[in-house]
């Protein structure tokens, strides 16, 4: 995704779809989610090997340590335990539960209660995963060791790194970690989602909302546009007038036609998309006054600004020499092993998996492939074939959704699209409703398959 040529960009656009941001855990981040709570009964007392041995009644044949318990890390831990009970699996994740990126836009728009979109890896202990509720602060990609926040080092035969993203401040004047709370993006989950929810609820008639969308690649490509759709739905219920401006750092986005036709039908004239070519990119903000400055020179006064910054792989991956010059982690798509360090696998949003979008569904799929690969390798068997799947829904309204899906293979270190497609432009209201139901059903399935929750 670093230097997408036109063809790849087209494929990405056709094949992309996600619901809200993938909340892959950022292990370099303290537990800040409102819903975060300590893991009730960590299985960490004593030696992990002893814990595993007691759980399986056999001595572990190998140890896999997984950094990050979001969709990628949790899925890998869970499936690996099922595939290879003789492998000890340790998952390092400070948050027992967190608000997931998928469906987080439904939360902030008041469509879903927090409990419906709050999940996490705590339940994985029940299937024999050793869940350590601490942050991983350092990864040694050569010795395959991880240092925990309490100073302990864990040794592993294989490392899986699924740390999610970090936001990249610096390219937008006036936007930094502190001021970002006044123009919250919520792309890392946590407190900013609560802030957004309250700020949306507090908007009054005639409000102007500015959503800043970043350049590619970033977590959850349709997230900013789904957010615009659902904020518009929430405001239209109680206001006569409002305006939503999407100030974009790029010239196209996933499912654009489907989104724009939906906006024209549901909220005619109220949602404006400003492409980069039209000077729409956010170049500066004054968080105190709510001013958003665009490349065109236009200054927007926002009652609520939600500025999603550019992104890169999480700090812990960068510090471990797993990223390239793009800031993301190059991997061999046949199993998502890092191309920089053997025996280290990078999953989820942190990995370069072009043309697969950075979605929770894709993270789950990558993690499944990786679990099969690890189980085979550690048992001395041949690797499985590569198939990866993405399916993502975006809500246009509580009762309308659009989707994209794709199946991918890999050859020669490249990922190829085997099939893909998206919702029909002319689909009926019944089909849109059906897809909205499916969005929640698929979300439930994804949660079950990732967290056993």
């Amino acid at each position, binding site marked *: 995704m670093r230097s997408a040529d036109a063809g790849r960009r087209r494929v990405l656009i056709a094949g992309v779809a996600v619901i809200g941001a993938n909340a892959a855990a950022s292990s370099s981040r303290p537990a800040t989610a409102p819903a975060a709570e300590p893991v009730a009964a960590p299985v960490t007392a004593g030696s992990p090997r002893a814990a595993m041995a007691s759980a399986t009644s056999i001595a572990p044949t190998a140890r896999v340590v997984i950094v990050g318990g979001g969709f990628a890390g949790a899925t890998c831990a869970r499936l690996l335990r099922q595939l290879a009970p003789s492998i000890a699996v340790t998952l390092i994740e400070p948050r027992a539960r967190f608000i997931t990126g998928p469906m987080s836009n439904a939360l902030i728009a008041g469509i879903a209660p927090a409990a419906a979109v709050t999940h996490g890896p705590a339940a994985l202990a029940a299937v024999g995963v050793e869940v350590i509720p601490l942050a991983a602060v350092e990864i040694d990609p050569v010795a395959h060791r991880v240092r925990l926040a309490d100073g302990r080092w864990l040794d592993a035969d294989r490392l899986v790194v699924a740390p999610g993203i970090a936001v990249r401040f610096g390219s937008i004047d006036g936007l930094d970690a502190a001021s970002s709370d006044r123009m919250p993006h919520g792309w890392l989950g946590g407190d900013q989602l609560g802030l957004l929810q309250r700020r949306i609820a507090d908007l009054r008639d005639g409000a102007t909302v500015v959503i800043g969308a970043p350049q590619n690649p970033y977590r959850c490509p349709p997230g900013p546009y789904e957010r615009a759709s659902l904020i518009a739905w929430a405001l239209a219920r109680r206001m006569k007038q409002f305006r939503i401006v999407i100030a974009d750092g790029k010239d196209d986005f996933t499912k654009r036609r489907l989104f724009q036709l939906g906006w024209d039908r549901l909220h005619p004239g109220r949602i404006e998309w400003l492409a980069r070519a039209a000077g729409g990119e956010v170049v500066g903000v004054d968080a105190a006054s709510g001013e958003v400055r665009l490349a065109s020179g236009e200054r927007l006064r926002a009652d609520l600004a939600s500025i999603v910054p550019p992104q890169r792989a999480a700090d812990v991956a960068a510090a471990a020499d797993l990223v390239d010059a793009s800031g993301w982690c190059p991997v061999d798509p046949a199993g998502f092993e890092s191309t920089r360090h053997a025996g280290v696998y990078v999953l989820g949003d942190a990995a370069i998996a072009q043309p697969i979008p950075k979605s929770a569904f894709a993270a789950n799929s990558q993690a499944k492939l990786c679990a099969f690969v690890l189980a085979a390798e550690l048992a001395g068997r041949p690797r499985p074939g590569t198939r990866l799947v993405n399916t993502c829904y975006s809500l246009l309204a509580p009762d309308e959704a659009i989707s994209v899906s794709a199946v991918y293979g890999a050859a020669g270190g490249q990922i190829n699209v*085997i099939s893909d497609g998206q919702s029909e432009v002319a689909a*009926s209201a019944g089909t849109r409703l059906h897809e909205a139901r499916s969005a*929640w059903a698929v979300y439930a*399935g994804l*949660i079950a398959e990732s967290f056993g929750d």
Partner: protein
Amino acid sequence: MGGADVGLAGVIGMRGRGVRASRCGLPAGAAGRALLALALLTAALALPAFAADLPPLQPVTLPDPVATPRAVLSLVAGSAEAEPIAPAAPTPAQAEHPARLPVLAANCLSCHPKLGTKSRGGFAPLGGAGLVDLSRLPPVRIEAALRAFRASPRAGTVMPRIARALDDDDIAALAHAFR
């Protein structure tokens, strides 16, 4: 691959062997293919278990698969509950076990997880059923549905896009992958 298959068997109860279409009463040959095509269309339209991926083509109220699993299964020819699957020799394609099959099957479960007895089904603000539990569908119905989805983009929303990535061997093997 053998090892990975054993591993998958532990996860999703995949069988290396199962019932071929002919054992389920579907005829072979050209006439059989015509009948099969009709059966596939019928399956795609009437298969309530896949209702969650079907646009409302007709004003028919589909049974709720979660609320009435028995009703669903009773509509299924050779219902898994009514007729235990007899062991049968694997076809060459099934015996070959494409190396990608376990990974493919695992991806199916991302939307169609096995529903445990304590399944909660998740938040469903719009009501409606969850997606079908593939382990409750007889192989012949899975195969019929996948072929129908692959044949027509109008047979569903998400599934036709995915089924186009499957070859005949994939479909034959996936039909037996969830039991």
